[in-house]
């Protein structure tokens, strides 16, 4: 177990390092680094001073180490646009994005799991065929288009839900969370549904495939031979067996959901890191871009590692096999 963790940690460290080199080269080596790191509005004297201060006259590899050292100290430059440390900007907006991402995953599970179970149990019923066809649709629909349609239907035509922004927040343990207020939930609902849609199709597929496989197993027949009620068979015997692969896949998907929030946040003007990065790319606010990329990659790698560990904890067979080894 610990061997596994250490090996993965080392792999993750390698990935991060590779990312940092890539980002460094992209930002510092291509193009004039002066333009990149110093605000375009600076005059000659400022540029000269900054060049010396930032060590831009030093050899490239030395600059890389300076960059790396600064990064490890949490200093990834200052945003041109906001004139604040880039990292702080990102960390400020992170809770909003995480809230949205987790809400989306929750919606995907709450909607997708029952539908997938149903499709797996009764694959020939008309509803099941509809869901199966619909999941191709959900898989194909570009997130941004669905977001637009959601706004069109619920906000513009029906005036049911707000179309932009985040609702009122409540501060819990230093974090501003909006799902604890009714207004917050109203604002959270559409973006969460939008973000969840591509994952719902995945959850349905996984649940249906898992259910189809499990339902033919001997132990399900034995459960029926015991005279158990079908509800118990489905909710306990079938569900527990399909949950493990679903949870692990979904865990790996959280990273993708966080990355994909760039689209939803832009459409719904949700104040998270996704909205920030798009704006930053458009105005070439490079320090923020660098900070976002490094942080998101770190996040994704960490989540992947955690899910790997979680998997071996959840599946009793894996856990005991490792213990014996």
């Amino acid at each position, binding site marked *: 177990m610990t061997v596994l963790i250490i090996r993965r940690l080392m792999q993750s460290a390698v990935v991060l390092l590779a990312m940092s080199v890539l980002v460094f080269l992209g930002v510092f080596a291509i193009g004039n680094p002066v333009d990149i790191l110093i605000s375009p509005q600076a005059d000659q004297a400022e540029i000269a001073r900054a060049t010396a201060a930032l060590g831009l006259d030093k050899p490239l590899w030395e600059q890389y180490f300076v960059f790396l050292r600064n990064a490890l100290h949490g200093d990834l430059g200052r945003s041109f646009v906001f004139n604040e440390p880039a990292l702080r900007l990102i960390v400020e907006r992170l809770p909003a994005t995480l809230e949205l991402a987790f809400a989306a995953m929750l919606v995907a599970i709450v909607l997708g799991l029952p539908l997938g179970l149903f499709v797996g149990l009764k694959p020939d019923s008309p509803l099941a065929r509809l869901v199966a066809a619909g999941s*191709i649709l959900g898989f194909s629909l*570009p997130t*941004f*288009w669905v977001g637009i*349609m959601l706004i*069109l239907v619920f906000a*513009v035509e029906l005036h049911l839900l707000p*179309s932009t922004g985040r609702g009122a927040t409540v501060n819990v343990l230093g974090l501003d969370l909006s799902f604890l207020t009714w207004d917050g939930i109203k604002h959270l609902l559409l973006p969460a549904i939008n973000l969840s849609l591509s994952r719902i199709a995945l959850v349905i597929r996984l649940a249906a495939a898992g259910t189809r496989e499990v339902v033919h197993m001997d132990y399900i027949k034995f459960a029926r031979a015991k005279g158990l009620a079908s509800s118990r068979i489905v909710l306990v015997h079938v569900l527990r067996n399909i949950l493990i692969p679903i949870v692990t896949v979904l865990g790996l998907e959280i990273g993708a959901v966080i990355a994909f929030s760039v*689209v939803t946040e832009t459409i719904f003007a949700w104040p998270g890191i996704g909205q920030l990065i798009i704006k930053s790319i458009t105005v070439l606010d490079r320090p923020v871009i660098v900070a976002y990329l490094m942080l998101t990659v770190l996040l994704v790698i960490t989540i992947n590692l955690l899910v790997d560990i979680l998997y071996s904890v959840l599946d009793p067979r894996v856990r005991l096999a490792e213990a014996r080894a």
Partner: protein
Amino acid sequence: MSALTDETAGIDAETPFRRLAADFFASKLAAAGLAVFAAILVVALLAPWISPQNPYDLASLDLMDGRLPPGSASADGLVYWLGTDDQGRDMMSAIFYGLRTSLGVGALSSIAALLLGGALGLVAAYVGGRVETLIMRVVDLQLSLPAILVALILVALLGHGVLKIILALVVVQWAYYARTIRASALVERRKEYIEAARCLALSDARIVLHHILPNCLPPVIVVATVQVAHAIALEATLSFLGIGLPITEPSLGLLIANGFEYMMSGKYWISFFPGVALLIAIVSINLVGDRLRDVLNPRLQK
């Protein structure tokens, strides 16, 4: 005796391809998907000739015709079946051209990714050893990152431009192709006929190209259809966000972005119809790809 010869005669008449086609078309949905996709392809290819108006010829545009609802007519009798955008462009023509760009970029990047990923995958499978490990580590690494993140990284670093976007899409996709082809090639490499070919001292290149490659095709075809749909969707997403194709090569994503701001005031058609076109393109490709996957999956074949 006669029963025996009857049976074998029946088997000879049906080639694998014909069986494949029969299995494929057994699903009406997939057949419909293929038909729709073919129609879209035709429209995209013939866009300059079948569009009522060239939406990018500024001279032919009339600002006064801007933001007209679907079905309205221009001063000189041209009917705007799907309405006009804020510049007075006929939406239908804009959509035809947009399809062209979207499909073109999607297909081009996919083909390039297929060639790159396929070559690397074949090399990895055939050569093995440290080369294979290195290639597959990079593949695994990239596949562990969400596609959109990879695209964002590349766009942020490379900047704008058609070629740069295509490059970004290629980099996003090559890993899928590499992994699929390597997996198939590995299975093939172990089969006996490759041993036989080796014994006959055929050159490596010949073995790879003539023997291994054709047998890898079925899963690659499935992956390719899915990837093309993904590429189209990804490009549309990037263009919508404003960090994709430049305005000079408007794809459907850009058209949708243009119309977004007009949605609140009820002028839905500027966003809606390009969106529907995009949807139809992606869904039809996915229907075909899904059916191909079921049909080509050796496990499901009875």
